[in-house]
């Protein structure tokens, strides 16, 4: 049986700018697969190509065995889509939004209402179905969109930044829905996110994508194991972190070293035993150590390892937050 998704050297250029640069991967049936990367990495562009919304510049991809360029109609029949920007009709009720969707996908009249009730129950919106969508909160809209994406029983569900701009609690809820849905109905899910915890918590496998390229692809556990052991992070005063890093390179027990924003992060086994040694070294070099932190590697460290940058650098400015909130509210 064919893979749920198979991507071969997919490329998308916008007027000479390469947004997606020869990516290849495949997703097994029933898998919960994540594309993790910072804003502008090319995640939405990839999803848009796979869902037949835009044409690839070159390369091939198959959904459920169907060619996204040649068998558009079959591909469209096989997929459910939840866009990064809400694509609901605010002047219609939740149920009407779902009903129209069911009609478009050719569900029989008797089937429609039954399916609508079923998906509304799944996302716990049964009692809100008759409200106008413009009255919904950001989280409710997302849930309704997920419900809509499922009505026609797609074999592959696309979720583009499913929790963008939502508060922590709502985000947790949505995670639960996604996980349950994937486990209970066996639908293949491919989601994009720039939240590490989200990818870590949800995905069976993750492709880390940066500047339109996949830089690493594996299970969250294996990705973190690449770094080995623990991460010890030192915060150094006065921009001297590079100086320390240079010195640390000479030490045998240090596996990897990264510096960013005045921090030095080293990976090593038995991190707790190395802390005194690191502090002593710092004192010898007359460096002022502002903080020390020991933890297991996170996907953030993995991203840093593969790209030399932290994802968080690119987000969290007030303007971005504002945009994200406005998006979640649906304009």
């Amino acid at each position, binding site marked *: 049986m064919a893979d749920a998704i198979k991507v071969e050297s997919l490329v998308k250029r*916008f007027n000479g700018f390469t947004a997606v640069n020869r990516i290849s991967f495949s997703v097994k049936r029933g898998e919960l697969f994540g594309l993790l990367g910072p804003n502008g990495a090319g995640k939405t562009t990839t999803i848009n190509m796979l*869902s*037949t*919304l*835009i*044409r690839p510049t070159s390369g091939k991809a198959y959904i459920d065995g169907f060619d996204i360029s040649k068998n558009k*109609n*079959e591909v*469209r*029949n096989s*997929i459910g*889509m939840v*866009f990064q*920007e809400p*694509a*609901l*009709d605010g*002047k*219609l009720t939740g149920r*009407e*939004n779902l009903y*129209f*969707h069911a*009609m*478009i*996908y*050719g569900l029989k009249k008797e089937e429609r209402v039954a399916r609508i009730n079923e998906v509304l129950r799944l996302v716990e919106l049964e009692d809100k179905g008759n409200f*106008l969508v413009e009255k919904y909160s950001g989280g409710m809209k997302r849930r309704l969109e997920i419900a*809509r994406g499922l009505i026609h029983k797609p074999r592959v569900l696309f979720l583009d930044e499913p929790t963008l701009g939502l508060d922590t609690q709502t985000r947790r809820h949505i995670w639960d829905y996604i996980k349950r849905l994937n486990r209970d109905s066996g639908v293949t899910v491919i989601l994009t996110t720039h939240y590490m915890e989200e990818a870590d918590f949800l995905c069976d496998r993750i492709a880390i994508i940066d500047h339109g390229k996949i830089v690493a692809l594996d299970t969250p556990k294996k990705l973190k194991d690449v770094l080995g052991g623990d991460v010890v992070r030192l915060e150094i005063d006065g921009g001297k972190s590079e100086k320390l890093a240079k010195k640390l390179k000479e030490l045998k027990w240090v596996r990897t070293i990264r510096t960013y924003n005045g921090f030095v992060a080293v990976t090593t086994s038995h991190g707790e035993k190395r802390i005194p040694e690191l502090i002593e070294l710092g004192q010898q070099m007359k460096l002022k150590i502002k903080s020390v932190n020991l933890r297991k590697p996170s996907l953030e460290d993995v991203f840093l390892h593969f790209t030399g940058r932290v994802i968080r650098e690119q987000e969290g400015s007030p303007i971005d937050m504002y945009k994200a909130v406005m998006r979640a509210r649906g*304009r």
Partner: protein
Amino acid sequence: MRQVIHFAAVYVLWVRELKKLFRSPSRIIGSLMTPLLFLIFLGFGLKNMALPGTPAGTTYTVFLVPGIIGMGLLFSSTFAGLSLLMDREFGFLKEIMVAPVNRISIVIGRILGGTTTGLMQAVLILLISLIFGMRIPSVLAFFSAIIFMILIAVAFIGMGLVFAAKMKDTFGFNLIVNFVIFPLFFLSGAMYSINNLPTWLRTLSYLDPLTYGVDGMRGALLGISTFPMPLDFFVLLFFSLIMVKLGAFFFERVESA
């Protein structure tokens, strides 16, 4: 691409448009406002304007009614076509773009929805104008006028689609309003008989599809027309078909970002 029309999608696009319209009465009232202001103020202000070639007793207001209906249809239909692009990238339509529905069905759905809402606006203006002395001579006249209204709507929704495919931003939107919609409106003879125009301008009027729409409605409702009504009908029909074809063609070719 298979050109089978996807009736469910067409129906959904149409019903959705109507539901939305009835749920925002302010939109209906808003769309009537400009045409009614034109009708009332021009009607009173130019009450004594000479109307050569019209039967005695035809007031300027009554002469103006078909023109103002044409104006309303011109604006609302062109916008309905233009907005398809916006809806496709932001709204509910984006969802339909990834559904197993061919593009021609989406175009037809939009035309049907836009025509229905445009027609409602037009009929409301016609009914309100009864207060100002307008008379509908017969049922046949009424339905002939409706046919012209439908054709005007279809033609300009198609034109809107063509522009939408070529337009990149809201700057283009203003350009279209000022350099296309307004000239089409003034050239159409909506506010005066094109016989009053100098020859070179009148030649341009002959190229404006709205001219035939307004003339046809005047023929049907007032019994005054510059051209024979069948001519008005066929020219407008021809133009509508071309515009729809072009609109659908461009819509299918442009991919959304």
